[in-house]
């Protein structure tokens, strides 16, 4: 099965059903016309509506970048933090209130460059939240420098003679990081993107949705068309439970960009682990704050 649409453990709210537009804030996006991020924003609103979670129970956390402006455009709680730190901040939010639906969002630079050190750890901890990376293969907000996913050879503001370094593949990284839901969508197919994001939101554990989100301004207006031709969908019989087949699906060398759910696994989340630890810690009963002082009596 290519996409995971069935919700696991969704708590159905009793409020009147929310529509996508209810998740939209009054702030007008500053994005350029044709920016891929519009689609992602819309897909987030649709996925949240489908989930039916009330706006005050959602926190959208981002770093800095064009894409990281997204919390401002959601009528939920939002936090537009600092460059590269969306994941730790989102982790803190989730740990402080596990009832919340937590979305971390940002760009390829934010997540794979300056924030690249946090991604492995959010993965191995399996924090129950959804990380949406809008990958435009460029630094948009700073006006067009190389990003960690800019294809080798490309000329940008900071690679005037063509880039030497190889791009990173976010899907392979997520797999290596033990991320328990790894998917890719494309801003050119919102319907599919909603499936991916909704799947992530419904997944218990850390979900990662890599979104091919072209930047017409600094990557050229052809990029979108080009992507349209390059995207393919993972086979229906792709085995998303096996890391090796997931790697295999990611490792194609025909220039195609596969979309779909590469990998999905149920395992205890950080919240589960903290609860288990609490149970162990309380095995000998609940101490009082006052009583703690006895520890220090010789």
């Amino acid at each position, binding site marked *: 099965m290519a996409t995971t649409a069935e919700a696991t453990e969704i708590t159905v709210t009793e409020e009147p059903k929310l529509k996508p537009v209810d998740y939209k804030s009054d702030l007008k996006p500053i994005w350029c016309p044709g920016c891929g991020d519009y689609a992602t924003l819309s897909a987030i609103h649709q996925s949240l509506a489908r989930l039916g979670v009330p706006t005050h129970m959602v926190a959208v956390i981002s770093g800095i970048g064009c894409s990281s402006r997204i919390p401002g455009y959601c009528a939920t709680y*939002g*936090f537009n933090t*600092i460059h590269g730190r969306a994941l730790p*901040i989102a*982790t803190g939010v989730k740990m*402080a209130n596990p009832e919340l639906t937590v979305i971390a969002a940002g760009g390829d630079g934010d997540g794979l460059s300056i924030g690249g050190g946090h991604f492995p*750890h959010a993965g191995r901890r399996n924090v129950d939240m959804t990380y949406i990376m809008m990958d435009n293969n460029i630094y948009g907000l700073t006006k067009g420098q190389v990003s960690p996913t800019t294809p080798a050879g490309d000329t940008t503001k900071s690679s005037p003679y063509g880039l030497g370094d190889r791009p990173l593949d976010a899907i392979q990284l997520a797999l290596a990081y033990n991320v328990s839901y790894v998917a890719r969508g494309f801003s050119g197919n919102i319907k599919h993107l909603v499936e991916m994001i909704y799947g992530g939101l419904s997944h218990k554990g850390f979900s990662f949705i890599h979104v091919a989100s072209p930047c017409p301004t600094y990557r050229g207006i052809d990029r979108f068309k080009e992507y349209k031709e390059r995207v393919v969908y993972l086979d229906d019989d792709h085995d998303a439970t096996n890391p090796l087949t997931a790697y295999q699906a990611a490792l194609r060398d025909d220039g195609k960009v596969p979309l779909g759910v590469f990998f999905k696994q149920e395992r205890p989340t950080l919240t589960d682990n903290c609860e288990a630890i609490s149970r162990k810690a309380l095995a000998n009963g609940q101490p009082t704050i006052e009583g*703690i002082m006895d520890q220090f009596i*010789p």
Partner: protein
Amino acid sequence: MDVRDFTVAVVGSGGDGAVTCGEMLTHAAAGEGLYCFMSKSFGPQIRGGESFSQIRMSEDMVLSQGDRVDALVVFSWPDFLRFKDEIELKPGAIVIHDETKNKDFPDGLPINEFLEPRIIHVPFTDLAEEAAGNSLAKNMVMLGAISEFFNLPVEGLKQSIAKKYKKKSAKIVESNCAAVEAGRKYVRDNHEVESMPRLSYEKSDTKMVMNGNEAVAYGALYAGCRFFAGYPITPSSEIMEWLSRELPRFGGVEVQTEDEMAAINMVIGASFAGAKAMTCTSGPGLSLMQEAIGLAAIAEIPCVIIDVQRVGPSTGIPTKSEQSDLLAALHGSHGDVSKVVLAAADVEDCFDVTCLAFYISEKYQVPVIVLSDQFIGQRMEAVPRIDLSKRKSFERIKPSIQEGEKYERFKIDNGGVSPMAVPGMEHCEYLASGIEHTESGSPTSAHSIHEMMNKKRFHKLDDIREDLTFVRRYGPEDAEVGVIGWGSSKGAIKEAILRAEKLGMKVAGLVPQIIHPIPYDKIDEFMKPLRRILVVEVSYAGQFYNYLKSYYPVPDKLMLYKRSGSKSLTVEEVFQQICHAMQSEYVL
């Protein structure tokens, strides 16, 4: 010869347990109600290198580690050499050793002969083998011997042996106690103890034994901290370790993060979502947290950052103390950052200052940095039980918004503080951000709003200055000379002032708990009547001095005593400077 105040140092290598001995002695003293102060030091080896502990005890409050020791116990003379600079003997001090390692020094032991130390040989190892059947028990023999020599708390000692080894076996407890007894007996049989400095004290209620790091951790727990994220770093890691054990018992969460940036940002996230949250680190970690501290300031998110200072710059000397993170704590984050800096002065104060940090942070929605240091963080003190009822705490002000009403997170009305919603509250959804913003939280680049918001954020500092007026002042009202210092210098300063007072000098001391916003009036009040003011600090660059000067127009009165760290400030050093200040003229 009775003494009310007794200091002993113990030096040995890995297996000798010099530090274990010190700990047991400290427990013993606390067990009999004495005040006690134990510092320790290790060689560079990761494990099993030479080590040294110094224990001072008295019925009266103990303020510092004790500049000079009444007695020195040496398990191994070659190891002693590494700590030579750190140990000073009183004239006529008693030096006890196991003769076997003497042969390394055929021309006499490497101690200052001039002080005429009395050298006593006790065959620790032989006695241990005899009494406990195990040479490892030699430190127990030693403890027994010195308790007999110096009238140290032997009851407490046995109690602490029983407690320490109860998880092992009754047999071990027994044989260790036997070793202690063997030491005592040996002394009784072979030595005349009357001429020794013998501690005179009355037993009283058992005290707690804590180090500063434990006191910080407990303070945080008490203040309501329920989220902790941190990255290990010497000399702060014990705080994280303690909380990893205790927080889960109180519904809290502790996360060891991938680095310090993750730690502070997780803390900010948790606090944004409503938890009282804290992180701990030392200098290098503080440097890495600077960017996020600015975020907490502009987004007005409460959080507490503990910096247990060590010698800098850079990696510096990780296991030694210094007071050189002050300016980085005050000014390290780019931009105009409104934040608070507090300093802990001793182990008990670590508890109080941490509580205060949460109080200020939650009430004023500002990041609060607490400066502790290796010296207080890792030393053990016997302290009375803490009266929790006297420590105040604070719950963040939340808005009450009805459906249809518009919540403005950064609304400016009274002072700098606006009610703070947290995710999960209905009708209060808002955007927090590190970008300058309007009262409702929308990004802006307007100068006028930026100016207004800076004013709002800095207004808090004025309010805090008024709200919290506690300062520590020592000495007579009519003092001529004042000493001002901060943090862990307190002990040496206070004791030096007491010593000066005894000699009839009129000296006062001030050690503020809140470093920033600095309590202008209080400091002014303190300084005004004084003829000379001596600033004392353990920082080569004289950071506190420069900070003070930037707020006080009194430079011709100020004198500075400063030096690098890696050696704790002694009472003698401060006292000498006081004498110097007493003699010096008005003008520099």
